[in-house]
Every structure is written in structure tokens, then in C-alpha cells.
């Protein structure tokens, strides 16, 4: 049997079956197509402007390494005129970051990009190891995630940069869509799929140019480009809805490879169906509209999660919901009851008899963007999540010291 030829160039021998659509490609064509697709994402969403200073959130992992490599390539090939900088966060986890930071340092040399490393200790006065010591292994990923998101912004600010790109891929986005469906969190669902997060009011905007790239293809790209990346699981392994959703995404991908993009598509469409949400998630039309996601709500987690674990978070939510149900019968939404009397439209009737407590009328007060009173980071609350978490941590530390 003659070896299969590349479906694209039809001259080279096909070596790669694309995870995304099972197209058989040669190495060169795969790399070219992968880069072209990222280029298309960038241009169709108008992510950058010429001369823009952009920080690449670099963890040393495959996603951010591929992102740095692709952006460097595309910046040169298509003349984006970008000034690219690597920005790394040191969470202060011994044995985890030490090695990956070395990788980032090598990347900085390989790609000829300046590198800035920001530590949790200098930003918050706590390393992750200290946090874990204080609160234990459960739930510390919340801290890590919240701190990291701000850390990138703060680091970017230090460098005078207003745009941070992250290596979130299509798998991550699909996972977030399913996770928010499972959590019943429509507000986050409506924001999680946008490619750009943060609006004109925030000082730093975020984007994810690899939003449509499959994780498996990112791995292949890194492999065939012989990229230098560091792969390890975070040693404080998480347990969360996200893990549950991740497992589901992987199973679906096995059955139908397009499922990942299909979920992303569904997520984008559903964003428009959330009550009170009128605009599309398309970043090319609405750059200045307020629909762009709060960076705070951006995709969380470490991106290195295993997916089998699930536990406390789901159990806690189940308990919470059950309690809500138990209290439901005792609550009467007076405003709603009055509104019900006013309109006698037959169509409304079917929505009314149930759940006076948690009906849609209440759930979708749009969040108002403001800035944290303590650190100035954009937040929907008076005090941002990071400052809230820090307050708790510091309280406990004070007690321990006494």
C-alpha cells in the first residue's frame, strides 16, 4: 500500500492525523495550517494593533510556550508590529515553579523576548506554600487562581503593558462552558466564551488567541516544532466542577472530535440567550461595549488539572441547593406575586407556581463593574476577590502568631 499523501500539499507523505478533523497532513502543512488558523483568529477578532506592547502570560507549560512561539512567528511573518514580552508568575510552590521558571527563562533566550517574573510573595505577602500551610490542600486552587489572574495584570502594569495574552485553548473554553452549565451559572456562561475579556475601564485587557486551537494540536505543534516546554501537574491537585467537566470533554472528543469546537459554538450561542444579554460575543463588533467579561470571571484553574477528581465543590453546591429547596416553601416573593396579579396573560401562568424564591426575575441583575477599594483591580464587588481572600488569610496568620 502506497503511503498516504498529505491532504494539503499532496506531495509530502502524511505523518499527522489532525486531532481536530482527522485530516492527514505532512509535518510542514500541519504547522502552517495551525499557524494560519491562529492568524485568522487574531485578524478576524482584531486582537492587536500595530506597535502594541503585548505580554504573554508564560507558565513554561505547553500552551503558553506554543502561544509565544506562534505569536513570534506570526508577528514576523505578517508584520503585526507587536512588542512581545514574557510575563511569568511565581506562585511560590517549591518544586513546581522552580523548573518551569527555568523553562521560561530559556524560552526568553530562544525567542529573544524580555521576561518579567512576578512573585506572589511580593504581590500579596504570601507564597502558595504558605497558603497551603494555612488552609490545607483543599480549596487552595481558588486562592491560586484568583491571585494569579491579578498577578498577571499587576505584572503587566509594572511593565506599562495594557494587553495580556494567555494560552487558553479550545478544550479549556469547552470545559468552562460545560462547567458553567453544570453549575447553573448563566452569568458566567455568557461571558466565558468571549475571546477578549476586560473592557475599556480596566487597565489591562486579556485575550486568548488559541481559543479555537485543540489541546492535542498544541501538543503536536510543540512536538514537531521541538519546543522547549515543561510539563508537570500542579502538586496541589484540584478537585472541582472543572475536573468533572474536563473528563466529560475528553470523553466527548473521543466519540466525536469536533465536539470541542461544537461546545465552544454552543457556548457562544447560549451567551446570546441569557436573559438580559443582548450583544453577541463577537469581539470584532463590540470592542467598546460593556459585554466583555470581567477578567475576574475568566477561565480559572491551573490548566493542568487531571479531570478525575471532583468532590467538595459539587457536594457543597448540592447541599446548598438542597437547603434552598427546603426553604423555598417558606419564602414568598411579594414583588413577583404582585406582578403576577397585574398581568393575567395566559402564557405567564406556567412559570409561576414554582420556586418563588429563585426564579429568573431575581437571578440576573447585571453585575456592575467597579474598582476594588483596596487595590484598584476591576471587580464587581466593592472589594475584589483577591483582597477578600487575603483578608481571611491575614486574619488567620495573626491568630497563629499570637
Amino acid at each position, binding site marked *: 500500500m502506497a503511503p498516504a499523501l498529505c491532504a494539503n500539499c499532496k506531495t509530502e507523505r502524511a505523518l499527522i492525523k489532525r486531532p481536530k478533523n*482527522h485530516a492527514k497532513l505532512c509535518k510542514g502543512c500541519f504547522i502552517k495550517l495551525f499557524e494560519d*488558523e491562529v492568524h*485568522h*483568529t487574531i485578524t*478576524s*477578532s482584531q486582537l492587536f494593533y500595530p506597535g502594541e506592547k503585548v505580554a504573554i502570560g508564560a507558565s513554561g507549560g505547553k500552551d503558553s510556550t506554543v502561544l509565544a512561539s506562534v505569536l513570534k512567528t506570526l508577528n514576523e511573518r505578517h508584520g503585526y508590529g507587536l512588542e512581545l514580552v514574557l510575563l511569568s508568575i511565581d506562585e511560590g510552590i517549591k518544586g513546581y515553579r522552580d523548573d518551569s521558571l527555568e523553562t521560561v527563562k530559556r524560552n526568553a533566550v530562544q525567542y529573544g523576548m524580555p521576561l518579567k517574573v512576578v512573585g506572589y510573595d511580593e504581590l500579596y505577602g504570601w507564597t502558595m506554600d504558605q497558603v497551603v500551610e494555612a488552609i490545607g490542600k483543599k480549596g487552595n486552587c481558588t486562592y491560586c487562581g484568583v491571585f494569579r489572574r491579578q498577578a498577571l495584570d499587576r505584572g503587566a502594569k509594572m511593565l506599562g503593558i495594557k494587553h495580556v495574552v494567555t494560552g487558553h485553548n479550545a478544550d479549556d473554553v469547552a470545559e468552562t*462552558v*460545560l462547567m458553567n*452549565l*453544570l*453549575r*447553573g*451559572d*448563566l452569568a458566567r456562561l455568557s461571558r466565558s466564551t468571549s475571546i477578549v475579556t476586560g473592557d475599556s475601564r480596566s487597565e489591562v485587557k486579556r485575550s486568548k488567541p488559541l481559543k*479555537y486551537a485543540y489541546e492535542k494540536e498544541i501538543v503536536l505543534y510543540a512536538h514537531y516544532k521541538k519546543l522547549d516546554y515543561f510539563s508537570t501537574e500542579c502538586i496541589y491537585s484540584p478537585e472541582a466542577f472543572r475536573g*468533572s467537566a474536563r473528563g*466529560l470533554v475528553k*470523553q*466527548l472528543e*473521543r*466519540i*466525536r*472530535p*469536533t*465536539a470541542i*469546537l*461544537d*461546545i465552544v*459554538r*454552543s*457556548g*457562544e*450561542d*447560549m451567551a*446570546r*440567550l*441569557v*436573559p438580559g444579554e443582548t450583544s*453577541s460575543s*463577537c469581539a*470584532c463588533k463590540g470592542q467598546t461595549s460593556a459585554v466583555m467579561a470581567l477578567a475576574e470571571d475568566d477561565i480559572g484553574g491551573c490548566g493542568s488539572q487531571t479531570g478525575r477528581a471532583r468532590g467538595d465543590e*459539587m*457536594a457543597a*453546591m*448540592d*447541599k446548598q*441547593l*438542597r437547603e434552598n*429547596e427546603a426553604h423555598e416553601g417558606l419564602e414568598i416573593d411579594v414583588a413577583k406575586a404582585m406582578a403576577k396579579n397585574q398581568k393575567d396573560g*395566559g*402564557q405567564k*401562568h*406556567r412559570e409561576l*407556581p*414554582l*420556586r418563588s424564591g429563585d426564579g*429568573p426575575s431575581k*437571578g*440576573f441583575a447585571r453585575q456592575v463593574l467597579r474598582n476594588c477599594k483596596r487595590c484598584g483591580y476591576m471587580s464587581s464587588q466593592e472589594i475584589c476577590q483577591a483582597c477578600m481572600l487575603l483578608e481571611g488569610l491575614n486574619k488567620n496568620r495573626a491568630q497563629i502568631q499570637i
Partner: protein
Amino acid sequence: MEAEPVVAGSLTRPCVKCHAQEATLDSRSQPVCRDCFTKFIATKCIKQIGILGKETRPPPSATGSGPAQGTRRYLLGLSLGVSSTVLLHLLNENVEFQLARGRNAPFDLVVVHIDHTQPTTTPTPPSTGPHQPNPTTTTPASRALDPYRRRYPRFTFHCIPPLPSHPYHPAAPHLDSLNSSSSSSSSSSSSSAAASAAASRTDIRRLLTRRALLAAARAHGCQALLLGHSTTALAELTLAEAAKGRGFALPWLVRDGPAGVAVGGSGGGSEESGRAEESGNEANEVPVLVYHPLRDALRKELVTYADLVGIADLVADRHPSHQGNGNRNGTANGTANGPAAVVSHRDLSIEDVMARYFADVEENYPSVVANVARTTGKLVRLEDAGGGRCGLCGLPLDEGGDERWRGELGLGAPARIGNGERESRLCYGCERSTAG
């Protein structure tokens, strides 16, 4: 869930609801007795039926077409699974209860099972109506209906094939394979293709079942189609449709209300409905409503209920559509045999994956399941998103979304099926399922 021995005179674990009987069951983490449990399930159902009753209150004056004046008329999609069987049982109880009190029956009920083992191309003279039971054809499914007929003589039962294939129907080749290969070992050699094919087959079968039920509802002059989806089934449906790229259509599929589907359907069994659709003349018809009266009950509760009221034996788990690769009779949901221990992902459909997943979640975090279904119910239906209906699932097309998506991914023109006047477009999800 075992009965505990009753200590003479006193109750070791009284039911939290009636305090009069020994609790033998756990319902939503509360100990309850058998009677209170069955009442609890019945109440969940009757509440929804009551809501539907208000929606379908007969007009004061005759309208000419449709049901006889003053009578509500519903069609129940019976998959022969647990959920739809329980729904049938509860509806029967409701009718009996009303009759026993000397009232009129609250509604007429037509029960329809869509039998995918029957050939779809059987020409049926329109004069006799396509939905008359054909005494000459005895498929396993039609035989499986016999115990139902004996048990619920009050209702009429029909076993009908899915809609005859549209001449340009993209699903036609899939249907053939769908009928011929319930054992998937015979399917194609490439494992990835086989996996996709199984997922697509199940998806298309589910869509066609739904359309056939809606067409039957229209043909029988029913105001509403009742489906047996439990809370769990609706949560599965939500995630499965999201995974198939039908996020846009979810509000039509999960919420109660008018069917988003163009009911006439391509080749909907009757010439008139076909013509009505072609001329876009369906606006003046009252849309068929789709209701899920069991939307507040978990699947495991329905399984328990079926055991308690002694209808578990009716559930035809040996029926072909409940066998092997777990292809369920999509729309009217519910299988007795929960997720089976299938090993190969080749044979799994997206629905199967979700069923396995939620069986697990339902066991440990039932409120999370309920929350998924409830949350999806809050999504709004975008009535006019660029016009047109999908040629396969019949739901509204999302012109704006398609446009944006093509722009973002740099894709070419949308797929079209057929040609000339009959040409119709597919929605994103159906494009996926017909692609390969």
C-alpha cells in the same frame, strides 16, 4: 431502601410526611413511606398537567378545526422506557380520579410509539391516515404495545414508523444504516468514523422521532405533545445538545411551550401539511405545545415509582431500541437498563456519555442535576434569528451565529441540502451529524 421490620405498635422510622407509616424509602434525603412517595411523584406530574390544562383551555366558541369542542387532546410519546411509561400511568390515574368523582375526563390521550424498526418507506394511502395501526405488520415494538393496551384500555395506542424520507433528505442514508445496524460490530472499519457514525445515527434518530411525534400530534388534532423526560433526562439533553453544537436550539428543546419545529415537516405523512410548509403557510395554525410533565422528578425516582406501582414489567427492555449500544428512542426518554457496561467508545453516542455521566451525578448530587435543568429553562428563545428552519431538525436557524462562526473560523459557505425549490439549509448541529 429495604423495608425495616415494624416494631409492634411503634414506628422505628416514621415517614416525615404522614408520620403514620413506617418510612421505607429515601426521597430527597428524607425518609418517607411508600404512599407518600407515590403521591409525591404524582403531585409533581399533576402540577405540570394543571399548568398545561390552563394553556389549552378550550375556547368558548368552536373553532372549526382541531379537537371536539370543550375537550383537551394530548399526544403522549411513548418510548416504552421507564419515564414515558410512568407518565402514561400517572395520566391514566389522573383520568380515573376525575371520572371517579363524576367529572369528565380532563383530556383525551393518544399514545404513539415511533418504531424505527418499521420500514420508513411503507407507502400509506393518505385516505386511511398514516397513523392507523396496521394489523399486518407486527414488529417487536408493536407487540410490545399489547400489554400497554391491555393495561390502559382507555387510551388509543399507535405504533408508527418515522416520517417517510424526504426525497432530498440528508438523513436517508443514515436511516438505512440506522435500521440495519443495531449491532454495531458490523459497522465501518475505521474506528473514528464508526464512533462518529454511532453518535450521528443516534442524534438523527432522536430528531426524527421528535418530528414524527409532532407530526402525529398535528395529525391527531392534539394540542400538546407530552414527553416523559425526567429532570435527569433534561439535564442530559442540555449537555448533549450543547456538545452537538445546538446551544442555540436548547430553549426550544428543554423548555415547555410551543414546539419550535415546523410541525408540518418535510413529508410529514400528510400531503396537506407538506404543502402548507412549502408555501410557508403555517403561521395561521396554532402551534403544538411540547410539555415535559415529569420535569421535576429524577430518573431514579421514576424507576422506584415504576417498581412500587407494579408497571416495571411493562417496560420493554428487550425491545430493540433499548438494546445493545444503548440507542434509546431519543425524544420520549427513559430506559430501564441504566448505563450498561459498554467498554468501547466506538458504540457510544453523545447521549450515552451524558446518560452515564448524569447517572453518577444524580446518585451523589441530585440537586446539581435539578439545577442544570432549571438553569437551562431560563435561556430565552430567539424567535427571529435570521429566518428559516433547519431542513432536518426543523428548528429555527441562527443566521447571525452561523455568519459569525464562519468568520471566526474562516470557513466556507454553509451546507445546503437538495436543490432548486426544495433546497433547505441545515443548522450547525445537523450539519455536524450529517457530515460523516
